[in-house]
């Protein structure tokens, strides 16, 4: 017994704590519905509780012997005389969640051309007609941008080629890929490439190059033929045909996992979410990202950005997510990517690289944009805003500024400080804070202030609706919970 006593505490040691003698650990809560609250701690562990339970917890009247007490204790909402490791564990978990901040910047977007062969009404970039070479990135600009890329401390680098239509300047893409690989011989970073393209200019030679360099393709697909062509017009009105042919061809050469697509929701999309998802299914895709329009670029000039409000978009989103769950119930694994990112934030120990769901904002520290002319922007949205004439989030130029000038610029540091959710009005005590983020460019564009007034913010309203819906599914629909949990990645 004496030897065992050195390893194990005596039974009476476990009875020392008494009701009322516990201390709350930092936590927040938000109402889920009229009867329930979501209680979350600093690292995103959660419990769904009733109002009486919440009162009991805060007023220190939780029964020591009940399940609720042990739930609160095991999920680090309280400590008592019997538990003293919670602080260390929470610190470790907090550090893990925030790890990516020390490894900035992973995503580098090269806008290799503003030219485009499409004339989309909702384009969030101010594209140029495809014969103006003045809007192409030069090799000199690309070289300077690559110097910035390899100054990033991140061990993993993704270079994404954007436009306009980047394949209109494919020789520069080839140049950047070759140069990046050559430079990386001295850096040994995990480097990936993505081309965001409408696929209309896709050729066998381009695909061969992509295959040789393990390049992924990301395209836009808005749904069935008539909807896609309505949203994304091009001369010949054959955008859908070219996109679908391009996707199939690229899947055959590169593999299905190397070809992704994004959709944008216009007013015409709202009643057709099932058809949109069916289009993705018919192409063998395993995921869809149901995205609302952003208030930038042509989407503002043409008024497309304001044709539906958050409530209408959320009905579209909810119907889409329910349909995705129905598809899964029928045995076909299919993911809605925004819900997946949130579910991962809820259940995974790691943070996200998705700029809009980070605190502080992922601007410049998760993604950075090198425009065709060498100007540097804090995010793709910041570049879109600049094309509208507002250069609030321009960080400098690869031609005139050093890496230190850019990363330590007032624009970056002030924005990071202004986007720490933990210090923002209404965000700081919101139970969904561990899963949410801030979107300074959106709030600047819609409210004239990077912090934003969350009571009237479309960003906040949209996310609150989605969080509440996901938690309701997790709590009330065991089958949906099982599917959603299957989307969590280690």
């Amino acid at each position, binding site marked *: 017994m004496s030897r065992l006593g050195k390893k194990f505490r005596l039974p009476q040691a476990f009875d020392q704590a008494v009701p009322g003698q516990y*201390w*709350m*650990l*930092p*936590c*927040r*809560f938000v*109402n889920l519905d009229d009867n329930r609250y979501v209680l979350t701690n*600093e690292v995103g562990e959660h419990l769904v509780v009733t109002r009486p339970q*919440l*009162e009991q917890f*805060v*007023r220190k009247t939780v029964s020591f012997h009940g399940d609720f007490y042990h739930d609160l204790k095991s999920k680090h909402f309280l400590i008592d005389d019997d538990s003293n490791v919670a*602080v*260390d564990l*929470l*610190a*470790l978990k*907090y*550090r893990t969640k*925030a790890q990516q901040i*020390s490894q900035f910047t992973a995503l580098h977007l090269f806008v290799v051309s503003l030219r485009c062969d499409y004339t989309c009404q909702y384009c969030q970039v101010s594209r140029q007609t495809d014969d103006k070479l003045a809007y192409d990135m030069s090799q000199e600009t690309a070289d300077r941008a690559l110097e910035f890329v390899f100054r990033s401390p991140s061990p993993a680098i993704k270079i994404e080629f954007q436009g306009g239509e980047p394949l209109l300047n494919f020789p520069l893409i080839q140049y950047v890929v070759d140069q990046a690989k050559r430079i990386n011989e001295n850096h040994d970073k995990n480097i990936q490439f993505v081309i965001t393209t409408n696929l209309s200019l896709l050729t066998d030679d381009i695909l061969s190059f992509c295959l040789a360099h393990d390049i992924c393709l990301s395209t836009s697909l808005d749904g069935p033929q008539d909807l896609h062509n309505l949203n994304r017009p091009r001369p010949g009105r054959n955008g859908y045909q070219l996109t679908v042919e391009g996707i199939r061809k690229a899947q055959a050469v590169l593999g299905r996992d190397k070809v992704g697509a994004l959709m944008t929701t216009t007013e015409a999309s709202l009643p057709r979410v099932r058809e949109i998802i069916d289009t993705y299914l018919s192409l063998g895709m395993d995921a869809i990202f149901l995205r609302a329009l952003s208030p930038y670029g042509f989407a503002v000039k043409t008024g497309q950005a304001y044709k539906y409000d958050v409530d209408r978009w959320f009905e579209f989103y909810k119907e889409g997510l329910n349909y995705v769950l129905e598809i899964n119930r029928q045995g076909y694994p299919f993911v809605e990517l925004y819900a997946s990112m949130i579910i991962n934030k809820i259940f995974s120990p790691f943070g996200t690289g998705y700029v809009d769901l980070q605190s502080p904002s992922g601007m410049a520290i998760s993604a950075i944009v090198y425009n065709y002319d060498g100007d540097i922007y804090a995010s793709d949205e910041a570049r879109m805003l600049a094309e509208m004439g507002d250069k609030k989030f321009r960080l400098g130029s690869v031609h005139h500024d050093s890496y230190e000038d850019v990363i330590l610029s007032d624009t970056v540091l002030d924005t990071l400080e202004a986007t720490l959710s933990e210090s923002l*009005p*209404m965000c700081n*005590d919101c139970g969904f804070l561990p899963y949410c983020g801030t979107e300074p460019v959106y709030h600047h564009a819609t409210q004239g202030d990077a912090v934003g*007034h969350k*009571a*009237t913010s479309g960003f906040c309203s949209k996310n609150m609706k989605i969080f509440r819906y996901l938690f309701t599914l997790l709590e009330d629909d065991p089958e949906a919970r099982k599917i959603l949990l299957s989307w969590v990645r280690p």
Partner: protein
Amino acid sequence: MIKGADAHHVDLSFDNNVFTLETIKRALYRFADRCSFDVESADKQTKVTLHVPANIAEPGIDELCSRIRNEVLDQDLRDSISRETANIRTLILANAFSNTGLIES
């Protein structure tokens, strides 16, 4: 409730022995999308006058008042949590960022 030409005005009052002014203001902030407020604090009570647009959408003024009262209660609980956990929160963050060179001495 007084109904003006273009807005409704409703008074709510909160006992200063129970709720702090900070608690009440935090709660009201969350309803800034639906109405504006005048806040007057006297010795024993804080009076809040709601200015609600005449064309207020459902669920209507009574429900709005009810939600504001509940939110004040919620903010009161949040205050309790915040007061009790402020030090340990600092300790957790200090622990999390120790050895990163990010903590200013």
